[in-house]
């Protein structure tokens, strides 16, 4: 092998080495670019799922509150009816006692 051929082989090897490094740099840049997209996708997925869950939580709470309120109204309406009936039955005697008080 002549000296010239030897130099050519070495120069070619260095070119190949340089190409390898350029390719690695390109891949590294690509990985870094890709990570932003991955993060945004995963974030969006996590938040969307959390929003869905949050919406279910508030909806469930609203239904629970509504049903508790209705239950309370049902129970209380009975008590109120009882209170009115009770007081109505005492009206006459109350009037008599109050008249006595006014005329005393």
């Amino acid at each position, binding site marked *: 092998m002549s000296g010239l051929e030897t130099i050519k082989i070495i120069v070619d090897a260095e070119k190949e080495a340089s190409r390898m490094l350029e390719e690695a740099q390109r891949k590294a840049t690509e990985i870094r670019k890709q990570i932003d997209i991955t993060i945004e996708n*995963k974030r969006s997925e996590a938040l969307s799922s959390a929003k869905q869950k949050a919406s279910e939580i508030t909806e469930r709470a609203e239904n629970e509150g509504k049903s508790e*309120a209705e239950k309370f109204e049902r129970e209380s309406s009975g008590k109120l009816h009882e209170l009115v009936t009770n007081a109505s039955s005492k009206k006459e005697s109350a009037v008599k006692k109050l008249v006595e008080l006014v005329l005393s």
Partner: protein
Amino acid sequence: MSETAKFTEDILSIAREKAQSIISKAEEDADRILNEAKSNFLREASELIKNAETEGEAIRRRQVSEARHALKLREQGEKNKILNEVLDQTRKRASEITVDENRYLQYLTKLSVDGIQEIGLENVVLHLNAGDAKRFGEKLNREISRQMQKPGKVDLAREPIETAGGVIISNNDDTIRIVNTFEQRYEALEARLLIEAGKLLFNE
């Protein structure tokens, strides 16, 4: 292997290692960045859910509290209705005493005696409505004299007063007055009547 081949192999081998190291470093950085970001957005998501739980609890409580408030208002409305009916009936029934002449005379006498004692003067003037003045004028004077230990001079006012019943006791020049009319007594007693009615009707 020739010297040249060994030399070029070394160049390529070093380049491969360096290239691998560049890629590995980029992958490690990507993993670290992803983990940091994951931790942040998971915290964000967890915060969203926590807020929804707090909001949900507030919604639930508000609905129950609104129901309680509405019921309280309904209850108060019903109570007021009954209380007003009872107070109206009381006022009407108390005024009906005027129909029973004997009982009303006794009551009028009591109101007059109380007023005379309260005003504390020798000479007083009694003011009645036109009907009562006509019905009880002299009788009332006699009853007062009978009931009081040392009755002073009691005159009846010439001008009748506008009232459903009862009496106003005044001095001669009408500058001091004790008002014992039905309306005044009812007004003075209204707060007490409300309390008593509440106790009688609702055990309050």
